[in-house]
């Protein structure tokens, strides 16, 4: 299926990636090419086939709900470019 410009703008917005006007046509062309190519999956009969949601049917392990570590907020914020007192700093969101 070919995408139109409006769809590309919509998914870029969903993905929170700003795209310049000059790039929209390029992405529209490239993404359409990829989607047209994956269309061949329609040739496969998947009636009554279960989707594979994990590798070799393994189910995720569970563990006791207990605290195993913690107390290192300084390490957690260490790589943030803008932080204040062991907190991440973001632009104002409430007026």
């Amino acid at each position, binding site marked *: 299926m070919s*995408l139109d410009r409006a*769809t*590309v703008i919509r*998914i*870029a*917005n*969903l*993905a*929170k*990636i*700003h*795209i310049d006007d000059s790039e929209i046509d390029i*992405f529209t062309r*490239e*993404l359409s*090419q*990829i*989607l047209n*190519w*994956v*269309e*061949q*999956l*329609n*040739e*496969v009969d*998947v009636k009554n*086939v*279960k*989707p*594979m*949601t*994990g*590798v*070799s049917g*393994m189910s*995720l*392990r569970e*563990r006791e709900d207990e605290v195993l570590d913690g107390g*290192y907020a300084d*390490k*957690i*914020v*260490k*790589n*943030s*470019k*803008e932080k204040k007192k062991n907190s*991440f*700093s*973001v*632009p104002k*969101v409430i007026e």
Partner: protein
Amino acid sequence: MGKLSDLGVEEVINGLSNKSFSAKELVQTYIDKILEDKILNAFVRVNPEKSLKNAELSDDRRKRNKVLPLDGVPIAVKDIFCTKNEETNASSKILENFVPQYESTVTRKLLESGGIIIGKTSMDEFAMGSSNETSNNGVVLNPWSKGEKKLVPGGSSGGSAAAVSARLCSAALGTDTGGSIRQPASFCGVVGLKPTYGRCSRWGIIAFASSLDQAGPIARSVRDAAIILEQISGFDTMDSTSVDKKVPNLLTACSQSIKEKTIGIPGEYQISGLSDDVRNIWKQGIEWLKSAGANIIDISLPHTPYALPAYYIVAPAEASANLARYDGIKYGFRANNITSLDDLYSKTRSEGFGAEVKRRILIGTYVLSAGYYDAYYLKAQKVRTKIVQDFNIAFEKCDAILTPTTPAGAFEIGEKSHNPVEMYLNDIFTVPASLAGLPAISLPSGLDNNKRPLGLQLIGRPFDEESILSVASVLEDSANFRSMEIEQGIVS
């Protein structure tokens, strides 16, 4: 004994144990070689002081007879593994200046077994690519390039494969999502082993597609790959898909007879785009295995043609979710001159991600979005089930499957970067085993018409790395690739 840097893992272990040289001498040799190299661009970072310090500690352990399994072996690590207090960027601008505060399980195991991290290697950005050209650290040159023809090393573990081939380390670690260990290993004439999904912990590996990502070794011999894999494998509570299974003695497996083994040859891998050279090497491989007493049978994996398109839905979908964490707030790059929180997110991601990563995030977002989920993502997951079923049926009749690793040898830098789908086709033979979570190995088996390495791939049953290692060892002995390396001036 030749040059120190020519020694593989097993030879290094023996040499250190015989006291022919020290770990410090060996590490110094590699550091000098890496720093002198101005052509390959395989490494993104080295820390000579730390590597030498670790070598001294290793030599010290040896003096005290407290030798560890990989003691003193210099290993290069793909820059996708988080290394504690050592910058890690996954070759992406969005992770610039990121210094992990913890060690990935695989590199921790490597260090705990005495291995020396000699440096971090370049890769396609976030492991998304098949040529190492999407790296934010510039292109990496394949050591097999000659004259004007500048070849890609393959990807995404291109830096690791190039470093092993050029003797800049004894072995390396890579990761494989759709072929990212095996394809560059094939292009650079080295061995690449992707273990069964769940064999190695994914904890601390920067995530691309979580249901596919696996760590594994890139090495100069099958035995070297087995030695490394044995040390980095094992159950880890920090990875919910890690499997609690005993790690077998993989080196023993390398010398097992293959007389009782049945090897399947899948007709569907005879694609029209297969080069004659690859076809011939594949035939040659079959003959080698016959001579060693293996039973060869034809098998069918009917859904093979659909593996690649299914992969290019599943992997981008998982990537779009995994890469949502890069928002400019918690770590890495953060855009300037922003007006709102939303603006911060979208500008950071626009400036921080490269073109291929953006393409995959957008495709992934699209196939997961309302109205398209069933048509694309759910459909691809069902096709993935069919691909697993194909393998299950095949493995009722055979112990391993022999295929080429890639449809052709290494291509030139820039040759395929203009067309995403053409680039994706490189992974046509490696992706099926990835989707099914199976162990697979690529080993150098010959040269094409242009004297570029070609690899053969063996795919095994889940958690049966032993079978593919035993069969690969036979192929390795028959191929005698070392003589081609000498003939082509890769090794003296």
